């Protein structure tokens, strides 16, 4: 079997216990928490009759492993349960809300690549010059800003003081690209700043490392122009670790989007998680946590494979 194929197969097989564990952990969230889940969900305000009904609805009167298997069976068939609060199906909510979160996360990712990579490259090439110092200072500060506070400050500056952008609201980028972007630009800047700084820092150190390698000296020695050396030889190799960092941070963005979506009142998946949290809507939280975690694990798998593909040493090693 070719190594690449074998690699993919090994990774996919290794995924099975992780997915299994994720399902148990998400299940445990509702069913093994201290105290009676029905009481927790009703917030201590339910009548005894309500408690009995909810217990029955959640299946709390049956053994734990039976409940788990039944739940797993439904989840595998795409039924993530329904909200206790307004009876909507979690899957429907997800389908409706996911595009918002995806466009927010993608735009944040795009911003961080477009700014972070050039900043890191410039910083490395002009090492110890004023460009480098300014870039590193900005990086350090950006890594220290809470995203939601940055969001608040952006609203104050761009929406309230300068009147350039709407404060809250949402139009899908699919229906109206321009107006959708106007709603998304501030949230994605707030969300993407941390990753931008992380990327800039990483690209800087890995470009510096690559520039010290023998093959760069060879490339220069054989008379390649500096631009070719820099882009085709140095940056390309330096970007390989950046891919991993971006993959890992997709998950952080997915989680972080909950805070930003709540702040900017964007109808995304993260906002749903938080709303469900306020309503003690445990089935919704359970379904969403499982869904987002599986997504996160799959993204990490794709990134790992991409990494192997990008680095021929790993592909043929």
């Amino acid at each position, binding site marked *: 079997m070719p190594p690449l194929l074998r690699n993919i197969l090994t990774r996919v097989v290794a995924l099975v216990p992780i997915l299994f564990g994720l399902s148990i952990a998400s299940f445990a969230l509702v069913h093994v928490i201290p105290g009676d889940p029905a009481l927790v969900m009703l917030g201590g305000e339910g009548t005894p009759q309500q408690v009995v009904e909810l217990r029955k609805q959640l299946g709390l009167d049956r053994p734990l492993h039976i409940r788990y298997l039944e739940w797993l069976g439904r989840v595998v068939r795409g039924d993530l349960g329904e909200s206790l609060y307004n009876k909507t199906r979690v899957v429907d909510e997800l389908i409706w809300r996911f595009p918002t979160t995806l466009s927010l996360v993608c735009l944040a990712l795009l911003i961080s690549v477009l700014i972070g990579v050039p900043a890191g490259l410039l910083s490395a090439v002009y090492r110890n010059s004023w460009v480098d110092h300014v870039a590193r200072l900005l990086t350090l500060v950006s890594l220290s800003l809470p995203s939601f*506070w940055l969001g*608040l400050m952006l609203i104050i500056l761009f929406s309230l003081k300068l009147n350039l952008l709407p404060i809250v609201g949402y139009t899908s980028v699919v229906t109206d690209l321009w107006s959708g972007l106007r709603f998304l630009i501030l949230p994605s800047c707030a969300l993407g700043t941390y990753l931008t700084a992380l990327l800039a820092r990483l690209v800087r150190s890995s470009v510096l490392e690559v520039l010290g390698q023998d093959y760069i000296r060879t490339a220069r020695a054989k008379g390649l122009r500096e631009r070719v050396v820099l882009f085709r030889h140095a940056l390309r190799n330096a970007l390989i670790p950046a891919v991993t960092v971006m993959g890992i941070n997709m998950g952080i963005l997915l989680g972080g989007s*909950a805070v930003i979506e709540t702040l900017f009142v964007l109808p995304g998946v993260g906002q749903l*998680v938080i709303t469900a*949290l306020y309503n003690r809507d445990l089935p919704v939280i359970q379904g969403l*946590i499982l869904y987002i975690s599986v997504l996160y694990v799959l993204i*990490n798998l794709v990134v790992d494979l991409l990494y192997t593909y990008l680095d021929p040493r790993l592909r043929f090693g």
Partner: protein
Amino acid sequence: MAPAVSLTTSHGIPPPPRRVERWGRVWRQLRRNRLSLAGSLIVVSLLLLALAAPLLGLASPVKLNIGQRFLSPGPGHWFGTDQLGRDVLSRVLFGARVSLMASLLTMFGAALPGVLLGIVAGVSSARISGIIMRLMDLLMSFPPLLLAVAVAAALGTGTRSIIIALGVVYLPRIVRVTRGVALSVIAQEYVMAAQALGSPRWRLVVRTVLPNCLSVVVVQLSLYFAEVLLAEAALSFLGLGEPPPTPTWGNILYDSQKYIRNAPWIAFFPGCAIALSVLGLNLFGDAVRDAMDPRLRT
């Protein structure tokens, strides 16, 4: 350990670096680095201000004063007053007590079992280490903030839940780092030498492996501490933390949202406090890491 050291040196194997010497070298490096000095200065002064908040003669952070609502920053109220006429400076400083304390407790709560498990995973058999690491992999496969939200959902809101939730998030990260460091320490010649001389296993772990791991792990902890501070603020911003009127940096920011049009200062200052403390910790952590590991210096 003392006889082991003398024996190893007589056989020409380099003795383990004495701890005093190494910390001395790190300290000299650090003193030269103005950034780390600035970082630690920021962190220490914020901690002191937080501790001393009740002694500074500030207005009460919780007492309402309707006659003084929405005063903009100026003499008397350096950071202005909020929607209930409370002094924002006082709320930020008293908020620091809750936020910094919660983050510190989270770090201790996660670091104690984390370092222990990491060392155990590093020195024990493949099976035990496998079990520990697979469990940690599982915890790591949840997106961090969502895992914290889930734990808080199960436990209810409050500072206690936030501490447990963030502890669960950082435990696997600390275990991984510690195990990695432990593995590299075990591969060192001085550990092998001590082992060859028949030093009991537990003694080897407690006297040789653990102390040599700690220096590296502590640096990583200071960087995690910065992340925990940000996460704690985010969770309490979402309303999962200490309920009002007790101020935390996160819940002041949550309240401030409604008034950003007329009173942006309520939102501005607590955010600055968070950013400043995180910056201090990052400066400090980066500098110590560079000082301890010359290879990483750029």
